[in-house]
């Protein structure tokens, strides 16, 4: 079982796909749930207080707007805990959304920079692309236990070593 960060971090569809394969999605909802269940805090709607954007300083400097740091105080620990990641680019609001483009940029950068198995896909625009995206995600999830065990660098969801071999083969094929 692998703990997987997702982007958008509150995508129910991604979380569901991950759970179906026996892994643990690091979804935003669980973090928010923990906060709103805390009886000691009374700062509706999400119990985010002045302290949270200050905690977000771990991920973004003081000159970064408080909204980004507040969001990062919740998303950042999920990224820290991630053993793998799935990033869906160009998704509409309904698929999942954190609302702030700067937070999106920082979150996806931190995930890419983490050197963990990461799958990046583009949000589908038709039925075929949808099947393809789901298959890609499922294949990635199936391979994760092995990928996480391997100790190498990762690029596009595969170990860097394999990626480099692949690039050599592709280059040779082109030359031929």
């Amino acid at each position, binding site marked *: 079982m692998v703990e997987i960060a997702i982007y958008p971090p509150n995508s129910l569809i991604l979380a569901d796909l991950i759970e179906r394969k026996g892994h643990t999605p690091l979804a935003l909802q669980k973090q928010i749930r923990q906060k709103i269940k805390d009886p000691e805090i*009374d700062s*509706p709607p*999400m119990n*985010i207080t002045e*302290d949270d*954007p200050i905690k977000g300083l771990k991920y973004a400097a003081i000159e970064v*707007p*408080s*909204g980004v740091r507040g969001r990062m105080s919740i998303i950042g620990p999920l990224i820290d805990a991630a053993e793998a990641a799935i990033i869906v680019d160009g998704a509409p609001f309904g698929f999942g959304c954190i609302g*702030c483009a700067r937070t999106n940029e920082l979150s996806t950068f931190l995930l890419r920079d983490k050197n963990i198995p990461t799958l990046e896909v583009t949000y589908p625009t038709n039925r075929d692309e949808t099947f393809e995206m789901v298959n890609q995600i499922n294949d990635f999830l199936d391979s994760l236990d092995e990928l996480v065990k391997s100790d190498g660098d990762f690029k596009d969801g595969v170990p860097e070593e394999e990626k480099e071999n692949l690039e050599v083969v592709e280059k040779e094929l082109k030359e031929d």
Partner: protein
Amino acid sequence: MVKIALVSCGTEYSGVQKEIEKAALTFGAEIILPEIDLDYIEEACTKFGFSAQSSSLKLMIARAMSIVEGKSKADAVFIATCFRCAEGALVRNAVRKFIQDNTRIPVVTYSFTERTKADELFIRMEALATTVTRRSILAREKQEGLTLGIDSGSTTTKVVAMENNKVIGTGWTETKDIMESVFIGVDEAFADTEYTLDDVDGIGTTGYGRINIGKQLNAELIQEELSVNAKGAVYLAGHQKGEATVLDIGGMDNKVITVNDGIPDNFTMGGICAGASGRFLDMTSRRLDVTIDQLGPLALQGNYRNALLNSYCIVFGIQDLVTTLAAGGSKADAAAAACHSVAEQVYEQQLQEIDLREPLIQVGGTSLISGLVEAVSEMLGGINVIVPEYSQHIGAVGAALLVSGMGHRQDK
């Protein structure tokens, strides 16, 4: 209850949602979120024409559009985005202008940090609630009868008596004991008239001591200085219609208020650094051995570039001026440098935060320092700066104007 629509990019993520709601509630208003369909967001953004990257800003645009199109009902709008967010600032101003251009709903904007507290928002919420519940008062463009305006500021107390749309007397004294200062000001204001306090139709109070004074004198109007100063400024400048910016560089704090048809819609208030206040100019005039009245004309004769002034701090700033004078620099250059320094700081710390609209109406005691007015205009690229008559009594004039029609003491 006044319904204030919150149009923001996510105040809940900065931990300030509760503070905004608390501030609204304090002034008998409630915060509402315009409800919209998901599909409406893209439609609204396409109509609006701003391609925001952040989806919360798209939501913000859609909420504004739903208010303009009448899909959501609100008495007032509070627009807020994160401080230091460039995209947020662009959308905030675009949305503000869009609502103002297409509705008569009062709007106030704010850029928040996680440190924003309810009391910082009080004056804005009070101003919003006022513009909803007292729109008829703010619409007043002419003073009638005999009214008295009292502005109890942190440094000075100003009193103005008005009769039939004219200022008939003014009083000005340092604020010491609140009520004693008021009575000194009242005596001064009525000195050249045959009237006494018993003859007035109504009393309006504003400034820090407004509530205490208002209660003791049974004032008909007790109003925050945001609405009052804005109204007083556009009234005295003869600019009651259209847009304008009111600048008040005070002894302790500075206010910049943008107004639309005489009603304030945004403002910033600074007061952290004394180097950007009238206090610095007061100290400069003492060091140069001139009165504060002489400082302005003296500054106009000098060139700030000839004086060394490397620090914005009031202490180090004065030290720099001393160094300039010791090196044989002229008093005029030092005066010009002091005025330029204050103008530069106000520009960098406050005017840049606000959507500046011409004309700029400069008010407050420092507006009488001609060198400072010139420096402000130069700083803003030669913008038209209006200093109306009685600009130092702006709050008291605004209070006397707004209370007009509310007071019927003589009828009783």
